[in-house]
């Protein structure tokens, strides 16, 4: 380069800063108005295997790019609890009635398209079919979260950790926090386990 040293350093710093600023753009985008492909009545076929009968079908364009989107993975985490995935796969994806999702080897495949088909079509012996009920964009968010559980997503898009303060008060409709968090109820707890959290003292009506 023909530039003198300080000028070169300044230019490098500028390029590096710009590059750094641009790396986080995709991670924090909130694409709230997305209507993902496959939402129409036409069947949404995903090629799960290279083997197929007859002439080769052309893969439809599947737009899954939530893998690097932290917001989508966080939304998927909310849906994972709200739509009762935790009922079979346990909070945190450890598996109970349903298979665990924190390993990375699944019968029906771990590619995003495979997970999408599993959620949309259902699977034998217990996995319900959510296709037609869940809009496709929401399914893709769940796919992104399941991929996170399996360890496929980059580390900088991790969703926030569970806030255990969230479940401390007893909601009259939702029951005690231990039941909501999937913990062992106090009466079934073995001696030597951690003592349960004491209920919060009644708050006075003083100003905050």
């Amino acid at each position, binding site marked *: 380069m023909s530039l003198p040293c300080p000028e070169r350093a300044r230019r490098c710093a500028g390029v590096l800063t710009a590059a750094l600023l641009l790396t986080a753009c995709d991670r924090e985008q909130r694409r709230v*108005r997305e209507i993902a492909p496959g939402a129409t009545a036409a069947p949404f076929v995903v090629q799960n295997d290279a083997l197929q009968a007859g002439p080769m079908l052309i893969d439809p364009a599947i737009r899954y790019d939530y893998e690097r989107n932290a917001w989508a993975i966080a939304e998927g985490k909310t849906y994972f609890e*709200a739509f009762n995935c935790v009922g079979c796969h346990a909070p945190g994806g450890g598996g109970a009635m349903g298979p665990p999702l924190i390993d990375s080897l699944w019968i029906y495949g771990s590619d995003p398209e495979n997970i999408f088909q599993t959620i949309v079509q259902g699977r034998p012996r217990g996995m319900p079919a959510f296709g037609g009920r869940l809009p496709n964009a929401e399914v893709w968010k769940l796919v992104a979260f399941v991929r996170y559980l399996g360890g496929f997503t980059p580390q900088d898009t991790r969703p926030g950790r569970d806030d255990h303060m*969230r479940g401390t008060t007893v909601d009259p409709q939702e029951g005690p926090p231990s039941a909501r968090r999937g913990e062992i109820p106090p009466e079934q707890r073995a001696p030597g386990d951690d003592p349960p959290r004491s209920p919060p003292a009644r708050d006075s009506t003083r100003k905050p």
Partner: protein
Amino acid sequence: MIAVARIAAVAALQTTEIGDRMSAMDPAGVQAQRIRDLSTFLFIVGALVTAIVAGAALAAVLRRSSDAHAAAPTTDLAAAQPERERHAAAWVAGGLGATIVILLVFLVFDFGVGRAMVTMPGADSALTVHVRGQQWWWDVQYDDPDPSRRVRTANEIHVPVGRPVLLRLTSRDVIHSFWAPNLHGKKDLIPGHEAFTWFRADTAGVYRGRCAEYCGLQHARMGFIVIAQPPEEFAAWYEAQLRPAAVPADSLQHAGERVFMSRGCVLCHSVRGTPAGARLGPDLTHLASRRTIAAGMLPNTRGHLGGWILDPQQVKPGVRMPPNQLAADELHALLAYLEGLR
């Protein structure tokens, strides 16, 4: 075009039908009355003090400029004018004394008002309402010792006039704040923590409220309404809310119910008396009895409801409800069904 429609919708809500004067200076309940009395007293006394201080400063400036010509110039003012020095000291002492007295009066008054606001009269007859804030709407549940007499609704709180209402406030996600200025001050809804406050509406009417703690994208549109009614009207409303959802009356409403149950609606909303029992979104059992939708943002009319269902992100971008792709006849049937949920 869309912006005009949005402004018109908001303007429609500003009519006298729904709280045309959402102001802490317009109290309709005893708590807001106490707050306004205290702030009026502070304001008047403060204004007087400001006037006196400003007057004294002005007098000092004018007197000094007029005396400069009369007295002989000297560097030692204190030795030359001991009387002036005593005069000034008297003023300072008087001002200091007056300030201490005024502040003590403020302290006592504020303490008295604070204690009065905390003490809820008639604890046995109080109506208990659980309010759980979440992004960006209010989950309201009326408490009752009998679980079958608990009412769950959203964004709209009916209260009887003249009866204290105990609010138990919590949040599902981030900190919100409950503020109905005509009725009370602000009280934060903190996740993992239950806060208590009480108010009493002394005048019947419809009062707007809003979230008063920044909570995300749609904090500005997280409103609610409090409707204070005579006790008989409130009891009638409560009984109506206890009833399960209305059965579809005609084939169009039946088709709408099928759309509701077979599409994404059931994943988030509940309609008591049907298989829909999800808790993520507001309870829709008596949706048609509410005056507003979208947390006090839109009037509850067919057009607004249809637009909201099809694309809530256009109205309130970032809100938790996704766009729904419905065919025209499906939407028509669904709206007919929802209008029947009185």
